[in-house]
């Protein structure tokens, strides 16, 4: 446990002493602030639905930047050799990197909570969709970070890792458009791989176990593949 705590602390420091974290946070808050202000003053409705979809898109664009260096950089600089010749297991290394990156995503969500508080001060929002929206965003973030970590484990160039993650995310975003064109039963199979299909119910106030299960399954599969990729050397 102490070993894991040391690994996690190292990863947290690496993330929060890097300018990337602050650039990502700043861009996120500026765009969110603009969207929130605009939608609030235009619609005069105390809802965060638009904001949730905006965060969804921003996650697809920013998570690859957060995760790209996680393993790829360690491989490029060969520090992975120092790390993995110490008595630490690959799952511990992967999980520490995962939790550290996820903590930045959670921080982004926590900071966006200011908009919910603003709504509460200015009006009487329906809290159900807000809670479900945040739960959906957390699950989405957890799945995206795991996939980003997986691509970073596969290559030693962080730019390639970021582009690979981004391509995967964009594919999983729009895959339902292709799915509808396919014959039965392939259409349902492909449509169910869509991130948007599983996120939309959360954003609009509905929680289905199948949607939560999808994000959790993607995260677990990606973490498993990350461990396998790290063990392949």
């Amino acid at each position, binding site marked *: 446990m*102490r070993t894991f705590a040391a690994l996690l602390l190292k990863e947290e420091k690496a993330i929060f002493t890097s300018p990337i974290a602050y650039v990502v946070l700043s861009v996120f808050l500026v765009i969110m602030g603009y969207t929130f202000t605009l939608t609030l003053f235009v619609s005069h409705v105390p809802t965060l639905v638009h904001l949730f979809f905006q965060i969804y898109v921003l996650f697809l664009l920013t998570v690859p930047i957060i995760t790209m260096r996680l393993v790829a950089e360690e491989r490029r600089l060969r*520090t992975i050799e*120092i790390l993995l*010749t110490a008595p630490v297991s690959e799952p511990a290394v992967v999980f520490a990197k995962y939790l550290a990156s996820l903590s930045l995503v959670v921080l982004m969500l926590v900071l966006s909570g200011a908009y919910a508080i603003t709504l509460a001060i200015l009006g009487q929002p329906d809290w159900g969709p807000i809670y479900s929206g945040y739960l959906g965003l957390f699950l989405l973030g957890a799945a995206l970070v795991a996939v980003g970590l997986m691509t970073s484990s596969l290559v030693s160039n962080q730019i390639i890792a970021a582009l690979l993650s981004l391509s995967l995310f964009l594919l999983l975003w729009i895959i339902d458009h292709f799915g509808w064109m396919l014959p039965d039963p392939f259409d349902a199979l492909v449509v169910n791989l869509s991130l948007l299909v599983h996120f939309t119910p959360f954003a609009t106030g509905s929680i289905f176990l199948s949607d939560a299960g999808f994000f959790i399954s993607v995260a677990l599969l990606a973490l498993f593949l990350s461990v396998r990729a790290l063990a392949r*050397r």
Partner: protein
Amino acid sequence: MPDLVAVDWLVKRYGPRLAVRGVSFAIEEGEVIGLLGPNGSGKSTILRVLAGYLPPSAGSVRIAGVDVAADSLAARMQVGYVPEDAPLYDSMRVGEFLHFMAAIKGVAPCAARGAVNRAAERLELGPVLGMPIGKLSRGYRQRVAIAQALVNDPPLLILDEPTNALDAYQVIAVRALVRSLAGRRTVLVASHVLTEIERVASRVMILLDGRLLTTDAMREAGQARQLRLRVGGPQPAVLAALRHIPGVVDPAPAGDPESYLVEIAPGRLTAADLARAIVGQGFALSELVEVKPDLERVFLDLMRRASAMQANAA
């Protein structure tokens, strides 16, 4: 002394390429072993397998009785590994990095400060403990890399090319450190620099193209006798005559046109016999000197023999 390291028929493949081809050796506790070989001969691969970074493709590697493939984490507890070129976390401060390494190597929290201080003191890292690793000189980086390997006081220390790109003063310091560890800890040093190995190791293993040519080059150096001759006459005729003398092994030209190096098989031929045989064949012998055996000669001989065997096999 019991064996701390036992390597039995180790094979390592990278895809279709064989990097290590059936290597076997043992290292006793307290030995300082040199692993010598040209670049690309498989030294780093063997060290990485011993350090638990690479799994063996075949064969077994046991460190302090623990199989590195079956129980990699327990085996890694026994090893302090310093990779080539000291890859370290540049953004971390030296003290912070050593504390981190102590924590992941299982040093108890109450003992961590003492362990880090001892390693830092031994490697004279006191002045740079608060500095980011990225701002250190190469010499200090190497010392930090060795300090992290020693922080949990492992019985086996593995150093891969520890003097690469260091200046003369730093090379002397690293050499002195390795010598100071002899007896108290088992050390395995890999290098392609022959003089480095010769100065620090009590036993030298020589590796070529993934094969171990000898597990004790110094002993081989002590067994064979080499003589330098100065013989008048055409070189091909002299070489042919030397080859026909029973007990003469591998006669070869040595520098100037009349000088030759020959190895004589102990017990079969004396220097006086050789002198008589040369003169008896009508050649003028003007010098016969015994050459002190050294690692360089053994290394070159083994390389030459291995190349000849490969050529014959082909």
